[in-house]
């Protein structure tokens, strides 16, 4: 009895240990050597604690920017950054997130085994982010305890096969094969890009017949591009702010030094969070894949979006540029229709814009890549803004989920949950 109490109240009560237990179960089920089980379990626990530490660093910078925008423009300013919002969500919904993720894996395997949606979703950080989103949305709608976890896991497992299935016809066209599916929660944007491409262009007119310099390739380095964007954003907001507001947050620092250090601090936070996420999913995903291969051997792996990049490197750049353009143009329409200001972030626009470019190119060539990227940019501007109200307390955090599917799933589930609450 003491042991049961210990497991239920001590381990399950502490999200970090809960995550460790999931890694433990996965590794043990695969009959890994003892030393591997121990190191894998400990690493994922450590990763979870690192995640929290990174959130604290990042919030230091975010808590300057948000109020500055609020006081200057009288509007809530939000910079969508998955890592940031998820790390913050763990402070309230850590246990729910971990359990939804664990049971979500199982739900994915059950759907893959029983339905025609034969996909195994292997992008671990997105599973983790989606689990955090679902805990926040369902929690805000008033669900708690076991129902929240069961419903959350069933939905998580479902979207883990649904989005790869929706993206699959396009993936076949892109890869020219049938080996991999897209496993990334930006798929709404990619499919929109693919459909727009079909309408406007011709796949023969491919982006890959163009000559391009790769001077923008530094953007792939996500920590670096986060840092540069944040320095620029801080600089612009500081210039726009009144002297009084600026001094309140910057103290004696010059605009230049303040923007530089705040941008760097933000990126440092993201970098710490990423290394935490890496330690968690680095152990859990291979275990999940190992189990999936045994239970659903005919399932197709659904993989992270950069797997599409080598198929159309030019479309990657075009898609990103036009997505970013869509984000900037869309931003000016948010205020007038009463939504919060979504400031375009480099990282979501790069990764999802680029993938949208690849999808658009596959169906509509150059025009498809351009317009597809643009549509994706609009989607990841309006969806995050519309998502904020269903996130409850987290909706006031000055950051939110960046990619399109988080918006779609959050808004739909939030709406349905409210009907029943």
């Amino acid at each position: 009895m003491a042991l049961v109490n210990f497991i239920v109240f001590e381990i399950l009560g502490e999200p970090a240990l809960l995550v460790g237990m999931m890694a433990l179960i996965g590794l043990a089920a695969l009959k890994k050597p003892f030393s591997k089980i121990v190191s894998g379990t400990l690493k994922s626990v450590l990763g979870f604690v690192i995640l929290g530490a990174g959130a604290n660093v990042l919030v230091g910078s975010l808590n300057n920017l948000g109020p500055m925008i609020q006081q200057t423009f009288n509007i809530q300013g939000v910079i969508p950054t998955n890592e940031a919002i998820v790390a913050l969500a763990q402070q309230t919904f850590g246990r729910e997130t971990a359990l939804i993720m664990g049971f979500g894996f199982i739900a994915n395997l059950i759907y893959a085994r029983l339905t025609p949606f034969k996909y195994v979703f292997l992008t671990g950080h997105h599973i983790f982010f989606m689990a955090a989103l679902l805990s926040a949305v369902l929690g805000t709608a008033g669900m708690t305890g076991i129902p929240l976890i069961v419903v959350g896991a069933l939905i998580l497992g479902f979207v883990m096969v649904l989005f790869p299935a929706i993206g699959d016809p396009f993936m076949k066209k892109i890869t020219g094969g049938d080996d991999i599916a897209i496993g990334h929660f930006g798929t709404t944007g990619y499919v929109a890009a693919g459909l727009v491409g079909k309408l406007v262009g011709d796949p023969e007119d491919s982006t890959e017949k163009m000559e391009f310099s790769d001077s923008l390739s530094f953007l792939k380095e996500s920590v670096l591009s986060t840092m540069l964007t944040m320095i620029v954003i801080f600089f612009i907001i500081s210039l726009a702010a009144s002297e009084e507001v600026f001094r309140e947050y910057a103290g004696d620092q010059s605009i230049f030094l303040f923007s530089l250090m705040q941008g760097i601090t933000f990126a440092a936070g993201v970098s710490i969070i990423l290394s935490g996420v890496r330690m968690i999913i680095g152990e859990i995903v291979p275990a999940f894949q190992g189990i999936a291969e045994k239970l659903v051997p005919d399932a197709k792996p659904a993989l992270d979006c950069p797997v599409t990049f080598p198929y159309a490197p030019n479309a990657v750049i075009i898609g990103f540029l036009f997505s970013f353009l869509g984000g900037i143009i869309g931003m000016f329409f948010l205020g007038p229709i009463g939504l919060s200001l979504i400031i375009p972030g480099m990282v979501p626009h790069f990764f999802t814009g680029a993938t949208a470019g690849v999808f658009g190119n596959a169906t509509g060539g150059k025009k498809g890549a351009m317009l597809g990227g643009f549509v994706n940019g609009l989607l990841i501007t309006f969806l995050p803004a519309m998502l904020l109200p269903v996130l409850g307390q987290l909706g006031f955090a000055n950051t939110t989920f960046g990619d399109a599917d988080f918006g779609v799933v959050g808004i739909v589930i939030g709406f349905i949950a409210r009907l029943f609450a």
Partner: protein
Amino acid sequence: MKVLAVCGMGLGSSLILKMNIEKAMEEEGIKGTVEVRDLSSIQGERADFIFASEEIAAKIEHNAEVYSVKNMTDKKEIKEKILEASQRGEN
């Protein structure tokens, strides 16, 4: 031998690459460890070989030998490259 699998974030594609490299090493009986990294954090890290997709590999400057992988889900390509790497490692 120590191998780093690298991508832009060190989360998604590098992890797939790592799993496929590990599988190939196990099948070929090659001993060693594979770890994932993001592009920003490989400087100053000791490794024997680095594996990455073509566009990432082009940006890596490192003492270790860099192998660029066309298709990170192509087990055959990965197996050939890891075999080549392990033979060089012995010399």
